[in-house]
């Protein structure tokens, strides 16, 4: 690592330059000390994307379990629970093979194949069938149904995605808790619009952490300092746009993450306009699609800009462009290398994700991808939270829109979409987003005693767009 690259960013105690690993370790040690000290009922950990949240959860949990403490873990979705159970089982198998992880699921829950055959995992739909495991993991929704049991320790994962009413339903189950989450991601939402709870410290529409901190001012809040996922190229964009106050650094440095192409593929990979039997070697759009991939490979970002136009949400041209980029990426035999991880592997379909704002856009992109849709993950920002891939292709939430609503401006949405990748991210958008932003400054009402949400979605969008425009290729 170059000294200048790191030194300008984080310095440790005594002004010495600190390696990312050391900086992270220092913070994690402080978190665990706070959590185990018994001085605080809750400890909050804010984590930028890919900063080792799950690693922290696993470490805190196994630490407690090895010391003979029982604990409960709360996650928000079944996928998150399965992920955690798998990681905990592997970690415990190393350290204390006789300790067991309980996976509490709904009635009829069938564990995914990756949990099958893990000897220290028990699965059940009620506590009795789990027979008192050392660590019990379930979704918040499932925990709400648990009665007549209590734990001294709890870990709440993805706590910023949890609505405060969900925490209200389960807080009786534990005495002390570690709340881990990413404040930059999507806030929990409600289908209901109602201002009657605005300004209340226990507003049920707010995230669990927001309510927790407003009701308990003295809880310690830690920041994980290093993103291990994001490439260096994403550091300034994501940190400036979405974490303007705490910032973060990436664990890798310039040139550590690379994307290279081993083949050229063939024009038949493009759905757009090239009939079977293929006419020229590359269709009209092929040049731009390849160019934007080259730009993304070289710089970590690519913006494929379509001509300005107001469209329906399922903009057929934009959807096709997204599918083309994805298809070409795979056809050209992309190889991802990460010097910081000493890893090099071909980018397979399973390592590519496509993100969009709306479910109908997702469905349209899946349809456009055809057979590939089975392997490439295509999903909404909400569902991509917490996941990571080599390369992501994003349909910009504001592409082709006439208006910029609070939904489309939400900083968390863009943050999720722009921070899932390890190597590079390609954004597909109609031109004219900047003008759209300029004509739609945010005008959300300010409510008394309601903390203002930073960063503001409008500003975050401007910041990201300013960065992306330097990597633009026009179709």
């Amino acid at each position: 690592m170059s000294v200048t690259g790191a030194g300008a960013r984080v310095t440790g105690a005594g002004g010495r330059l600190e390696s990312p690993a050391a900086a992270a370790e220092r913070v994690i040690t402080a978190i665990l000390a706070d959590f185990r000290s018994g001085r605080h009922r809750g400890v909050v950990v804010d984590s930028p994307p890919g900063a080792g949240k799950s690693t922290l959860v696993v470490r805190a949990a196994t630490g407690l379990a090895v010391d003979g403490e029982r604990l409960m873990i709360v996650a928000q979705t079944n996928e998150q629970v399965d992920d955690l159970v798998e990681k905990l089982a592997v970690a415990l198998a190393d350290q204390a093979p006789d300790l067991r992880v309980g996976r509490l699921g709904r009635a009829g829950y069938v564990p995914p194949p990756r949990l099958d055959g893990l000897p220290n995992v028990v699965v059940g739909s009620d506590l009795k069938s789990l027979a008192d495991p050392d660590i019990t993991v379930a979704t918040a929704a499932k925990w709400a149904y648990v009665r007549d049991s209590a734990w001294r320790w709890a870990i709440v994962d993805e706590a910023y995605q949890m609505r405060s009413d969900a925490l209200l339903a389960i807080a009786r189950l534990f005495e002390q808790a570690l709340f881990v989450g990413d404040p930059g991601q999507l806030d929990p939402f409600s289908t209901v619009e109602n201002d009657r709870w605005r300004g209340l410290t226990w507003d049920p529409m707010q995230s669990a952490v927001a309510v927790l901190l407003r009701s308990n001012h003295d809880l310690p809040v830690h920041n994980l300092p290093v993103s291990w996922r994001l490439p260096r190229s994403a550091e300034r964009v994501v940190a400036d746009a979405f974490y303007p106050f705490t910032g973060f650094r990436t664990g890798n440095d310039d040139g550590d993450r690379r994307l290279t192409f081993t083949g050229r593929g063939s024009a038949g990979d493009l759905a757009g306009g090239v009939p079977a039997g293929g006419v020229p070697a590359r269709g009209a759009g092929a040049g731009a699609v390849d160019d934007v991939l080259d730009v993304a490979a070289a710089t970590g970002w690519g913006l494929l800009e379509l001509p300005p136009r107001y469209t329906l949400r399922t903009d057929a041209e934009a959807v096709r462009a997204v599918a083309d980029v994805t298809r070409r990426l795979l056809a050209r035999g992309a190889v991802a290398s990460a010097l910081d991880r000493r890893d090099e592997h071909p980018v397979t379909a399973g390592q590519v994700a496509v993100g969009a704002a709306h479910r109908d856009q997702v469905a349209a992109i899946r349809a456009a991808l055809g057979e590939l849709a089975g392997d490439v993950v295509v999903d909404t920002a909400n569902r991509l939270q917490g996941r990571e891939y080599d390369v992501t292709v994003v349909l910009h939430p504001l592409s082709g829109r006439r208006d910029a609503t609070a939904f489309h401006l939400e900083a968390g949405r863009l943050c999720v979409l722009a921070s899932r990748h390890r190597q590079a991210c390609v954004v597909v958008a109609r031109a004219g987003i900047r003008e759209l932003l300029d004509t739609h400054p945010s005008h959300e009402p300010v409510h008394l005693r309601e903390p203002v949400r930073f960063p503001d979605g409008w500003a975050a969008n401007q910041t990201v767009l300013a960065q992306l425009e330097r990597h633009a290729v026009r179709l």
Partner: protein
Amino acid sequence: MSAVEAYARLLAARAGAAQPVASVRHVHLSERPLVLVPLTMAGEANAPLAALVGTDERAPALLVVGQPRDRALRFAFASELAGILLAHVERCAAAGTEPVKPPKAAARQQPATAPAGRGAGRAGAAAGGLGGAPAGADAAGTGEQGTDGPGADWEAEAAPEPAEPVRFLDAPQVLVPNRAGIDFVRLFGRSTRFRATTGEHAVPAAVPVLGRWLTYLAGRAEHPGSASLVAMTEALTLHWATGQSALEDANLAALMAWIDPPAGLSGPEAALLAEDPVRWPPAGPATDPQFDNRVLAPAIRAYDAAAAGQAGSGGGDERLGEALAEIQRVARTQLEPTWRLMWRAVDRLRALPAAASAPRRWERDRARFTAYYSYLRDSDGGLPQARRDGAVAAARRLGALERELAEYEADRAFDDPLVLAGHRVTGEAFVGTVVGADRERRRPNERGSLVTRPLVQLRTVDPARLATGTRVRSPARPGQTGVTLAVEPADDGFLVVLELSGGMGRSKVPPPGSVPKVGETLAYTSLLVEGAFSAGLPAPEDTPWTHGGPPSPYEPAEQDARELWE
């Protein structure tokens, strides 16, 4: 705006007349709704100036406040309004009762509800400094109750189990012109429900009761699909699209101009005329500023002078009476056009056939009415609704609102092909023809026993965007659920394969007719009412530390009713 609504607006703009966006009436309409057109005075938050109110178009009651800044007169107005509203409530309650079926599973755990959280107003302390968001609105509002009064908790409580063994056959339905009218009801309820009827600043006995009922109505208006308090502009835009903006649609006169223009005029022409505040005074509660300055201000000044003269010399009742009559006259000029519009709108809505699920939603309104009516008469009930929801009440209310919204949207899509069309455009629903059916298909379930799960294949030209495994239901076969096994592009559209369950009886081979036949045309939608998250929230007194701990119990105190009177 959905694509269908945008399309309807374009059609309306081209045709110069409003276009239907619903084929049935989704709002329940009482036989005798209580129409309320309130006006407030500019410059003071929610100070009532006048109202036309009544259940008979030809005989509305006109209420006015001679000097809206005078609190004694304001509560005299409240007392008169209470006379009318409470009589209406009693009429509804006297319309008879019906027995309520006991809940299906009595054993089903009832979320800690009942008289939970008697008082509880820690929020009074925590949020006391808030001063009430729309401050001034009830400058009167020092008489704040804490949070979580039993009233609030009761109201937010959403258990489907009926609270009473019987249900009234009727419930009050109040129609106001617009959303601001609902806000007026809410704020006026807030400024009256805490008033004391004895001691200093006593108000007539009916005033705090009025406050409770107005708050009840405003609370119901938050519930999707409730018809207890309805804003007419919103009821109309639910059924018609105009060629003007949503902002312009909030003007009742302009909206009705598109829907029901006078003979010889097109919608836009009539709407343009409707924007003239002299011809069509605003539907309130805010009044036209020109009217305020030129007409109302001199009338109120004359009233003040007469009142001062009366106070100074003793006599002068006649002058005061004349001044009041003048205010009544000018108020009437502002209210009557809206009054007539309201009834025309009621007639237009009544002409539509009621939606299939509207009576069920009205039944919920009736059940809530019954419960609140008995709560007010309960020996240890009758406390005013809390000013704010406590943590538990808020969570419970939010859960109830979300559930009702989901139900309401699904119901409307089921009841109305025009609403369904909106979901067909987004791919959440489709209409297709059955092209294949495997009626006798059986497969093992999770436990390994064989169950009947027929397959049907439908061909549709809709852009069906349903992920595999999505649950769908057809309005024509509400008891049967389908799960999409595959959605494949077929010529000109999609081929959807559904696995059906339910609605086929218990025999191994489903009886004829219980499975769709080849050639049948069916609509399927993925908008279903799912069992929502409603598991045990704690009782308010067990509010956990994460949410500020248990609120301290509310003790009624003398100063609750104190306020600056002058």
